[in-house]
């Protein structure tokens, strides 16, 4: 079943890419699929577009697609939304806000909702990104709702995190609380054509001024007027491909912590983990032994645990 599909993928059949993304998003046959992918000649630039709901991620992504195509780079968009925990259904409307490029094979847009919500989606993301990269897209835009902690996990999987903020969305303390500013490589103040942009910019710069170390560039952009879109792409492009960096020990430690967080999310609901918790609660296993056991579960578990 899988072999012909993978063969079509290698022939750059978009329908095969689309189908494989469905399988991987459901956690089906992920390891077999990944094993069958061609190696990529050139790594993609993976850019996460994140921010609170309603900040205009999809509209901005739509503008970025056009800008990236102007530079003759192919681009794939993965637009991620949570699915309803009640019905398992999802209403994915991001595509609606991006202009269609029906005749352009250099643009691929895919909406995703993972069973099990944001945590499970994060667990499937490495494989989803690998699929799109292996297909040969040069830029991958990953659109996710910024929800604080979840973004730290996403950060480990991408080269550049663009955080979108807009005028009149809460005060600086809210952003600080959510830990959003810390994960950003570029901060885009969206809807810069609206009143209140000066105040928003001042708040962000003040918040950034409190942190030690280098601060990310802060840009004013507007999807409505097109202001700052070209500059935003330049800022994204100017940053190193973080996934490829191999020198900084801190970076490796940080990545390990973040991958561990992703694995925790995937493992905690599994039968071996709940069984371990039961044995620990009832005193059948000592705390130290339980910790060791948990570490073993974390390191053994496939990242794409369903």
């Amino acid at each position: 079943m899988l072999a012909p599909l993978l063969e079509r993928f290698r022939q750059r059949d978009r329908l095969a890419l689309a189908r494989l993304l469905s399988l991987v998003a459901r956690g089906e046959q992920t390891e077999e699929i990944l094993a069958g992918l061609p190696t990529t000649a050139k790594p993609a630039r993976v850019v996460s577009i994140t921010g609170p709901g309603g900040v205009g991620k999809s509209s901005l992504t739509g503008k970025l697609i056009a800008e990236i195509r102007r530079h003759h780079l192919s681009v794939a968009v993965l637009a991620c939304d949570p699915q309803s925990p009640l019905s398992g259904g999802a209403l994915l409307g991001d595509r609606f806000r991006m202009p269609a490029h029906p005749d352009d094979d250099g643009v691929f847009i895919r909406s995703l909702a993972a069973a099990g919500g944001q945590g499970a989606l994060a667990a499937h993301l490495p494989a989803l990104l690998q699929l799109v990269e292996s297909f040969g897209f040069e830029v991958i835009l990953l659109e996710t709702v910024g929800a604080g902690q979840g973004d730290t996990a996403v950060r480990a999987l991408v080269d550049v995190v663009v955080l979108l903020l807009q005028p009149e969305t809460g005060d600086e303390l809210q952003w600080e609380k959510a830990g959003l500013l810390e994960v950003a490589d570029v901060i885009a103040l969206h809807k810069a054509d609206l009143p209140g942009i000066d105040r928003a910019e001042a708040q962000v710069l003040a918040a950034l001024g409190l942190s030690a170390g280098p601060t990310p560039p802060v840009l004013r952009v507007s999807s409505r007027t097109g202001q700052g879109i070209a500059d935003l792409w330049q800022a994204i492009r100017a940053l190193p491909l973080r996934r490829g960096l191999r020198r900084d020990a801190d970076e490796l430690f940080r990545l390990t912590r973040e991958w561990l967080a992703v694995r925790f999310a995937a493992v905690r609901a599994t039968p071996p983990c709940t069984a371990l918790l039961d044995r620990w609660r009832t005193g059948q296993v000592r705390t130290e032994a339980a910790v060791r056991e948990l570490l073993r579960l974390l390191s053994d578990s496939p990242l794409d645990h369903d």
Partner: protein
Amino acid sequence: MSNAPLRVVLAKVGLDGHDRGIKVVARALRDAGFHVIYAGLWQTPEAVVRAVADEDADWLGISLLSGAHMTLMPRLLQLLREAGLSHVGVLVGGIIPEDDVPKLLELGVAKVFGPGTPLDDIVAFLQQAPRDRHASTAS
């Protein structure tokens, strides 16, 4: 695979700007456990087909209130076939004269839902339809 949520692309083609009906359907399908990709208003048939392809949709729902169904639907169905998407089930909702319904079914539309169709009927139709539509392309 059998328990995975079905993916449904909903779109409006042509110039009619009335999107209340399709939004109500989108919400009902979401609540019934479908993954609904809302592609929006004023789509060209080409853009709809590209959305169906990239989204790996099982179903495509088109809302038509403009009276242009007998020009737009044949074109859309032909483009789907050309794109290798014959396995995707096509639904039409909206104001379709009774005489045109058999013609649309003849063209390959799976079902036409007129105004006032209970949402439960649409949900039930999709839930009862055979799920192995993908067999032809997955093998």
